[in-house]
């Protein structure tokens, strides 16, 4: 057996490791190597940060001096305001609750969406368009298309749902009664599960297919379409939930929403 050259480890310490290599910078810090066009942080960035924080402090101060945070009566568990609404940033979920099963709207859809959002970078792995707003002119067109598509569809579906669910004797379609009578699974299976799930998945897939067809979208571009669609749906749901839902969570025009009934006396 030949002994390796160089200094030998002491007996019993053969496994000791030594770091004797240069490591390429990229393997520790992944930097895009580009034209050096840099500015000193002190003063250039710090000045911006300082001014921004001053302006925002003043702004917040002014807003806080001008508008008081709401405070209503002491909480009373047997005195339900009608409607009871979540804070505005969750009204999108509350709006969704009206159109499908609670667990589906409140838990499954947001979980699936957040998970999908987290894995976006693992689906769209190209480096195309990094640092450029909307990637390209095509990306911009796709953004506009998807925003219009999602806004119009979501809004129409909300209106359609309101019409379909209104009982027949009030001039609606009486969908819930009809479903209970004629559909397998009654008013649960189709209205609360199958139809909403098919719509949500179907319309998203349709959007991707359309942008692929119309705009020859690549992965980054159809991702833009899906994400824009989400943002638009999120905003439409928030706006409808905030400003178009009155007592009983019925749909109203934003300017005609009746005041909240602050307290429903418990039924004796």
């Amino acid at each position: 057996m030949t002994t390796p050259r160089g200094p030998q480890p002491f007996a019993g310490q053969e496994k000791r490791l030594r770091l004797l290599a240069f490591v390429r910078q990229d393997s520790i810090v992944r930097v895009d190597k580009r034209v050096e066009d840099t500015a000193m942080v002190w003063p250039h960035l710090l000045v911006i940060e300082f001014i921004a924080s001053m302006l925002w402090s003043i702004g917040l101060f002014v807003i806080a001096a001008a508008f008081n945070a709401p405070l209503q009566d002491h909480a009373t568990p047997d005195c339900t305001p009608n409607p009871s609404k979540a804070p505005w940033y969750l009204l999108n979920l509350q709006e969704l609750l009206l159109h499908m099963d609670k667990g589906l709207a409140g838990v499954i859809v947001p979980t699936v969406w957040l998970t999908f959002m987290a894995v976006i970078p693992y689906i769209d792995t190209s480096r195309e368009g990094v640092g450029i707003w909307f990637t390209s002119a095509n990306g911009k067109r796709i953004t506009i298309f998807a925003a219009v598509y999602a806004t119009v569809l979501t809004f129409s579906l909300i209106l359609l749902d309101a019409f379909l669910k209104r009982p027949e004797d009030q001039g609606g379609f009486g969908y819930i009664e009809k479903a209970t009578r004629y559909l397998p699974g009654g008013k649960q299976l189709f209205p609360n599960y199958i139809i909403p799930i098919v719509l949500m998945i179907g319309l998203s897939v349709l959007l991707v297919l359309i942008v692929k067809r119309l705009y020859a979208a690549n992965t980054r571009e159809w991702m833009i379409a899906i994400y824009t669609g989400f943002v638009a749906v999120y905003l439409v749901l928030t706006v409808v939930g905030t400003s178009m839902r009155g007592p009983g969570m019925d749909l109203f025009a934003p300017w005609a929403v009746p005041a909240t009934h602050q307290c429903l006396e418990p039924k004796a």
Partner: protein
Amino acid sequence: MLEIPAQIWQKTKTSYIWRSLFRHGYPDSRKNQSLAVFTNVFLHLHPVKVRRHALAIPYTWCMGGLSFFLFLILTLTGTLLMFYYHPSVDGVYNAYGDIKDLETVVVFGQLLRNMHRWAAHGMVITVFLHMIRVFYTGSYKPPREFNWVIGTLLFFFTILLSYTGYLLPWDQLAFWAVTVGYEIARATPVIGDEFAFVAFGGFQLGPNALLRFYVLHVVGLPLLTGFLIAIHFWRIRKDGGITGPL
């Protein structure tokens, strides 16, 4: 005339104490500007130099920075509010009474409460806008994939922080808004009841829910969020600063 202050300044700057505090001269040269940034624990979050476009407001909208700014403001005003708040639903010292006292008795109490409230709403908005800017500028792409994942968590925790805070005044608005969330939690498939029981401390919104939300709101979630922000910022540096056109 001016020699005296100049001499004092000179003396101070060369004094033992001053030199133990600052290890660089006035930041008017490249060297001292660099030292000013990386010898300062607060500033060393920054690199010494940034690429010029990173300073452009139309590019970042400042939204990440403003989210962090609001987070700091909320920590500060929130800590002050804690001095006046008991997380209990009744008794002599109770949550609702404390909020009333803030509005009527405590000097600048109303202003403090307003600032906390509006900053919280503001942070939800700035974080959302930040996420939008990151998406549309393609800034989640390699090597920044993981920072985007951290960001998604930050978005989720920002909403949770706002939501847990919403219950604390224990007025009708708070109670019924949180009831909506409670109903959703119970509708979780399979583990609905168990989940709602753990999250809200019972099958009704009561003192347990208030205490749980309080602890989460002032300790658990801010710590988690703080940690995530630290990782977020660290990763921005390790990913080579913020993105820009190639």
